[in-house]
């Protein structure tokens, strides 16, 4: 089920790209896709009934879910944050240069 949710989220992200004309919405769609993929990765490592992979007083025996996807997702999230920050700052400049974030208007102004 979680797989389907993440696939649908990817679909939503793609749909956002395909239908929206505002660049900021594109960035949001990108984030949605990233998140969907992260959810997908995490759920790939989930084993029902087992614990978070941390040794503690309460979980002395190693009945853990797969920790590797979680570690990978941690990395992927941070990378996503970095790209998002970069994208936002680019959009600030795009807005400054063209006065709009609408794709069609930008293309029209580029043509001039």
């Amino acid at each position, binding site marked *: 089920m979680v797989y389907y949710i993440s696939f649908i989220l990817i679909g939503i992200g793609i749909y956002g*790209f395909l239908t929206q004309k505002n*660049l900021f919405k*594109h*960035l949001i769609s*990108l984030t949605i*896709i*990233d998140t969907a*993929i992260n959810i*997908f*990765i995490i759920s*790939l490592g989930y084993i029902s009934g087992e614990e978070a992979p941390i040794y503690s007083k309460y979980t002395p025996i190693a009945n853990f879910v797969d920790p*590797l*996807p979680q570690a*990978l997702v941690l*990395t*992927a999230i941070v*990378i996503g944050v*970095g*790209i998002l920050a*970069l*994208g936002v700052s*680019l*959009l600030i*400049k*795009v807005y400054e*240069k*063209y006065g709009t974030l609408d794709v069609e208007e*930008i293309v029209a102004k*580029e043509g001039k």
Partner: protein
Amino acid sequence: MSALLIAVPLLIAFLFVPLKNKIKYILPFVALFSLILILKLPIEQVNFLGGWKAPFGITLVLDNSSYYSLIVVNIIFFLLSLIPQIIEKDLSLIFLILMASINGLILTGDLFNSFVFLEITSVAAYILSSSKRNYYGAFKYLILGSIAGAFYLLGTLYSYIGTGSLNLADISKNINSEFLAVVPILIFIGLAVETKIFPLAGWVPDVYASGSALTPAILATGVTFSMMYLFGRIFITVFHGEFLNVVYIFGLITVVVAELSALKQDNLLRALSFSSIAQAGLFLSVISMNSYESLTAGYFHLLNDITAKFVLFIIAASIGKSFIKNKTTGIAFSIASFSLIGFPLFAGFRSKLLILKTAFLNQNYILPIILLFATIIEIAYVLRWNIKLWYPDNILPQEKEKTQKLSWNVNLILLIVALVIIVIGFYPDIYLKIAQNIASGLTNYRAYVTNVLGGM
């Protein structure tokens, strides 16, 4: 030891954050250090980072192919670092990070690690491409690159599920045909953006033609080369040449489409970036024949292409409307463009012959036809630009006054590279040796697996 290639540029970059303005003068030393270090490194060495053996930890694999790729890439960085004029003030740090990440991209023996380095490279490339106020182009590149990165990540995860490992050698050993039907698609999408495959190369003209000299000079040479290396590593060593028939078709379409688009460009940089796309497509379709010979031919051609593009892009971005005041620069430009279109005596001719020979050897008659057709179109626009710059129409005197002479170090380096092109035209052995080593390292996946995972 090979970790130093990544650690040292990073360390310098981190250390010099507060002193951004001084860093320009350190770049040549860092690049030179890397270069010397590589030459001192022994080949066939696997570096288990953190002491964790493969497939558990991350490995840096220094075999024939990565060794020679590193040499190529670092020479490019060294040459670029000697031209501080084109490195805009703040971009020196990016330059260092790009150096580290590309070294990492070539060295790494881990799929997820390659994703990380891919992302570092991409982020650095986005920043580079935003120079000269090219924000919209950079944003488009960012979107495209990030989506591709997402697919690359998905591909990584699928191969993790399929093989239980992220190590390239381990994946190569264990991946089964079911996963080979899915993973290559995802990885292909992930790499298609950086390797400029049609129709995902839309960012290239905007980014290369922003007017900055550094952006295309790095992206079309060093970054392209490392991406092509990674492509070969993943698709040939890891996937054993699976999926390459699709790459072949995409490569051929890329060639034709890009050359046709280049024909009408009225901006030299844009025309060159289309040529860059076309050559990348040609390279991919050549290596798709997946034999030692075809890989040799492909990488040899790639080397020639990046050598020529190095000269062409720097000159195209920094020269005005003519070569009137920069004759030496003009000569370097012409030599590079003759090599690009494969006139005899120049390096490009040798690789063209090699590609033709390989293609015919594989009973492949479509590739030569496409190659020759593409070259005819390329001749048309490359030479048109040569003529336009050498014999400019009615240049006003005040414009003539305004055109600046390029400084001596730029000219010197460009001339040296142009000289290399001519020398390669006569004695291709240097490039050929590099290409052969890369090809042998990539095709011999058994040796790669044994090398990384130990004798099994």
